[in-house]
């Protein structure tokens, strides 16, 4: 009790507060990604959040024109934040939290960028607006809790909590399912870290201007780890975006077969067997370098959205960076791709056949590699 009443432990509170602040503002550091040349020494199997130069998708809801005196509002979207805080067409936004916007010394300072930046750093922004009706300057606060109206609210439940743990990511997508052949027409997407508390609640905002009146939409979810899908919804769940804030309850099932399989004779693939490490191994094998942070993030996202590994291999083998390594020697390039895919040295006739084919394809290497992949079964 004596120890408890000794308030010396309060000294640690600043540490707690600093960590809290660091956590909140940690996003600023993650916004900036540098692809250093020594990226090759990076740890394997790490997760990188998607690239997001403007982390918030916050929109004020205006159409505007940049001028030397500020940002002139041309139109205010009905129901938007701009309308709710009283902005009208003809008003001019001069500054966002003290930072000038519009055309400044020949350079455009975008009002959307500036609001997103202030919102993300401070949680709020103040607009200095020249009121078109009375010619007065007025400060108008905008808060982050003023969220747009268009959102799907819901919960996600899993059938198998054992194989899911915090730090995995939950991907949510609203897709357009109007036409049967459309598999990847995504109008809104979001990614949340799995908290481990079930059911998980979510709010998925979407841009109402891209919703078409006679189209059908559905929502799907999946949990992935380092580009590998662990669980997903069995099929997309229909959602009516015409109603106000529709609610859905999603259920995840374990995925039996993983997307793509390691490339046979996989060369320098990562030892973890995870798809993104396999891609990193191919970069090292074919391009002589590791994935940069940006590339790792992009491929993780594509893998978690179901892009097969062999398609990524085809993209690497068809890339300009790989092709340039052969210094314009098309025969050497074709022979190397052939060797990688068929696992044997091509005959001169085979090289000639593919060279002719590449010419027929007007040097479209991706197409040629895809054809080779189909023929070789890899």
């Amino acid at each position, binding site marked *: 009790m004596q*120890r408890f009443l000794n308030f010396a432990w309060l000294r*640690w509170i600043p*540490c*707690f507060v*600093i*960590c*809290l602040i660091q*956590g*909140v503002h*940690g*996003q600023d550091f993650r*916004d*900036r*990604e*540098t692809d*250093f040349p*020594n*990226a090759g020494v990076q740890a394997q199997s790490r997760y990188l959040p*998607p*690239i*997001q*130069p403007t*982390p918030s998708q916050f929109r004020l*809801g*205006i*159409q505007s024109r940049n001028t030397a005196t500020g940002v002139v509002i041309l139109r205010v979207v009905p129901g938007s934040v701009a309308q709710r805080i009283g902005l009208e067409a003809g008003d001019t936004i001069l500054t966002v939290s003290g930072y000038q916007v519009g055309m400044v010394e020949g350079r*455009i300072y*975008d009002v*959307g*960028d500036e609001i997103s930046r202030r919102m993300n750093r401070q949680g709020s922004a103040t607009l200095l607006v020249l009121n078109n009706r009375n010619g007065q300057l007025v400060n108008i606060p905008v808060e982050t809790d003023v969220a747009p109206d268009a959102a799907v609210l819901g919960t996600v439940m899993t059938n198998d909590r054992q194989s899911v743990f*915090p730090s995995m990511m939950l991907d949510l997508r609203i897709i357009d399912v109007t*036409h049967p*052949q*459309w598999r*990847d*027409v*995504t109008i809104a*997407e*979001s*990614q949340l*870290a799995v*908290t481990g508390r079930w059911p998980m609640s979510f709010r998925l905002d979407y*841009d109402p*201007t891209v*919703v*078409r009146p006679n189209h059908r939409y559905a929502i799907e979810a999946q949990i992935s780890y380092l580009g590998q899908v662990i669980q997903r919804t069995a099929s997309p769940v229909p959602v009516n975006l015409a109603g106000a804030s529709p609610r859905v309850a999603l259920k995840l099932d374990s995925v039996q077969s993983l997307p793509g399989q390691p490339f046979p004779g996989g060369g320098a693939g990562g030892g973890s067997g995870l798809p993104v490490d396999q891609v990193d191994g191919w970069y090292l094998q074919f391009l002589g370098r590791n994935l*940069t942070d*940006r590339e790792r993030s*992009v491929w993780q996202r594509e893998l978690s959205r179901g892009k097969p590994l062999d398609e990524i291999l085809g*993209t690497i083998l*068809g*890339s*300009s*960076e790989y092709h*340039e*390594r052969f210094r314009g020697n098309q025969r050497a390039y074709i022979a190397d791709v052939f060797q990688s895919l068929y696992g044997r040295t091509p005959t001169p006739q085979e090289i000639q056949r593919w060279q002719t084919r590449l010419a027929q394809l*007007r*040097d*479209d290497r*991706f197409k040629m590699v895809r054809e080779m992949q189909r023929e070789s079964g890899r």
Partner: protein
Amino acid sequence: MKPHRTLCLALALTAWMTTSLMGQTVGEHGYPYAPDKPLAGELEIVGSTLMQQVGSLWLSKFQETHPDVQGTIDCRGSESSLPQMTSAKPILGMLSRKISDEELSQLAQSTKQKFQTVIVGYDILAVIVHPDNPIEALPWNWGNESLWNQGSGKRVARWSDLGDATKLGKDQFQIYLPSKEHGLRSMAERFLMRDLDASQVAIQELPNPADISDAVSKDQASIALVSATRAKSKKVKPVPIQVSGTLAVSPLDSQCIAEGYPLVRELSLFFAVDDGGARNPLVEEFLAFVLSRSGQRIMTYDGFLPLTPSSLEEQREKLGWEVIK
């Protein structure tokens, strides 16, 4: 450590983890690709060989949503795309250099059509030197748009003008240039050769960027300009560019455009518009795809950078599309 301290530290760490890692919604910037219906028809893509593979990936992904669109790609270089724009089919030209007003007006005269261009991404260029070269950054003069003419009257001409050159073996710049037919040549002349006294530097032409990187990795006094993707090898050192008093920006920084990195090649699409400014519906749809999140992501596949949020909005405004901020 006393138990309550341990407890507080654990609490602090948990707070940090919770706020920085958990429950955070993340997403890419840009607009979704939200077509109205699958289209049909023929679409032709011509122009820059640099952008050929990106064009192919765009077309293939576009055809997943529009399976009845027949697409062809025929890339013979940015220059050669201009005469090809007379095709009766919906046609898009890919450009890895700026098309001049004069070229556009000549094209308009010869084809009796109007044309428009939009920027769709960037090829970041990097000045590379030998890894042992001690140089930390090269200053950029915005007024002269030059690395070497700093406006003070004195021009940089030798390594010793930039600092200690003793490790380099010789003081003279050894410049490696791509051959004249290579698209990078004009960029190297613009960014690397302008304001240098050719009589004071050694110049050697090499046929392609891979040869240039190899040569730079073997020559301590060398300098060259390559696409940033080719500067990621540990065999060469990409040099940051000092864009303001204290800010030096690396060409490998994914935010380099927003930070004012100047050695950038804009990649564009150009296409015909009618007298009222309207575009062919298939061209319009393809542009909507290229400027969507999906289309912009594909830029990364072949080593390019997508548009920054503000550039993306500028291009959308240029096309007359609604931009909500």
